[in-house]
């Protein structure tokens, strides 16, 4: 059996004369926490869209959760979760309504949704707030709720797009502990962030610039290879050489 949950070969995406993603190849193992880094405009979002089955590559191929990204993207969509800081929950719905909505979208049965919802709200310690609107929750709680909902359907991979903006170190760590817990259950976590200290929480990271993956490895390997004391320093060494900026 293939242990790689993401396996990408020579993936390229062009928009007219502009090559957003240029021939990237990488793989991510089951249960791994993979950090996907890059400056604004490096091509991260375009690459993620192809992995999620939302955009077709110009060339190259690969599999996500065992399905071909070129032709089996509908199967991929039902086996992945997605959360971003910009959009994850409906602020004007309650936590319960959000759970019901997203559970329904992922095709869960009403009974399953109800069961999962009560455990989920209990675990997050917000059972007493299940009838308040999401907008009244503190940001840290919103983010944990959004993450829990993104894995409600027990996906094989969850994509987290800059998930932890704006929270204090304590809430951020609670969030990362949820990520670790999720990964320990075998769900692969694919995460982007602009905050390099967070990158150090990942098992492996890649750094993109000019549409290419410039380096890939564990935080420690990268720091060793680039003779840097932090990932921030590694990142700057790579990104300042980038042409697109």
């Amino acid at each position, binding site marked *: 059996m293939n242990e790689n949950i993401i396996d990408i070969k020579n993936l390229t995406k062009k928009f007219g004369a502009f090559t957003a993603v240029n021939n990237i190849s990488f793989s991510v193992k089951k249960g791994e926490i993979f950090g996907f880094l890059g*400056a604004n405009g490096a091509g991260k979002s375009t690459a993620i869209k192809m992995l999620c089955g939302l955009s077709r590559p110009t060339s190259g191929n690969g599999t996500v959760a065992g399905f071909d990204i070129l032709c089996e993207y509908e199967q991929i969509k039902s086996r992945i979760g997605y959360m971003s800081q910009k959009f994850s929950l409906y602020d004007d719905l309650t936590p319960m309504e959000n759970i019901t909505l997203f559970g329904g979208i992922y095709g869960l049965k009403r009974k399953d949704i109800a069961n999962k919802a009560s455990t989920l709200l209990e675990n997050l310690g917000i059972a007493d707030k299940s009838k308040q609107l999401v907008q009244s929750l503190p940001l840290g709680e919103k983010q944990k709720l959004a993450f829990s909902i993104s894995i409600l359907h027990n996906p094989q991979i969850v994509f987290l797009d*800059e998930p932890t*903006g*704006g929270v*204090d*170190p304590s809430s951020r760590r609670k969030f990362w502990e949820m990520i*670790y817990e999720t990964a*320990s259950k075998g769900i692969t976590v694919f995460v982007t962030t*602009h905050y390099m200290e967070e990158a150090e929480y990942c098992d492996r990271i890649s750094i993109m610039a000019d549409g290419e993956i410039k380096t890939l490895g*564990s935080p420690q390997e990268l720091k060793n290879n680039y003779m840097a004391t932090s990932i921030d320093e590694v990142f700057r060494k790579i990104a300042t050489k980038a042409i697109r900026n």
Partner: protein
Amino acid sequence: MEAIKSENICKRFGTKVALNNVTFSVEKGCIFGIIGPDGAGKSTLLRTLSTLTTPDKGTAIVNGYDIKTEYKELRKHIGYMPEIFSLYQDLTVEENLEFYASIFNVSIQENYSVIEPVFCKLEPFRKRMAGKLSGGMKQKLALSCALIHQPDILFLDEPTRGVDPVSRKEFRDILTTIKARGITIVLSTSYMDEASMCDCIGFFNDGHFLQTGSPNEIISSFSKPIYSVRCLSKYKVLMASRQWEDTESCYINGDTIHIIFTQSIPDTYSFEKYILDTTNETIKISKTEPTIEDCFMTISNIQPQ
């Protein structure tokens, strides 16, 4: 000399207390960072100091002027950059800058040297609509507009949110050049690593400062020894460490785990053995220096569950 001196500022919105007796001061010519999570009241504090809102109680002297009674005069001497891009998207870069210059009754040519370190990067885009700029460029335009009247104090609300590490480094360098002109800078951020660019920082939570001081002062005031643990399965080791009876607090820190024990000289040998017995993980434990994050975690006294 003090650029800002605030005393017991209080502000509430309905039942929500945004500012709770904020008393602090900022030395002239330094960069002061208000560091705290979203919802802590940082923006309300900045808006109060820059006279966009009035306090319910207390007051502050900013640049020698009282924010309650002398706000009209004060406004000529401060610049404010809000968290959300608030320039005219359908005006060009140049038009936005001209508009701000004319409001403050100054000419761009006269004051160009003040904005030069920021605006030089925008020169090629003078004729572009502000709405069509990238995030980093928008931020530079907003900063240019906040600087065009040569303020004595600059207030920046979350200037580096959503900005990638390269642009953030660039932004820090720009702030250093602005500071070198004698301009006092007060900024807010939710990221502890921004502390490194500040001369002085204040941990802000629940509407008041928990601690203020230079980054070095804050770090040296941290009295407990802190240990760093390296291991393969951080999650397993973290959970087991929490169960150890002499653990006061422990949390993930980058690719290690940080632990503060209840004793000042902990028995690390027994701890290592305990972890090996319960998780089958071999760990490397060593004493480490606290970071600004460790200080915030401890002072805010909220431990991850």
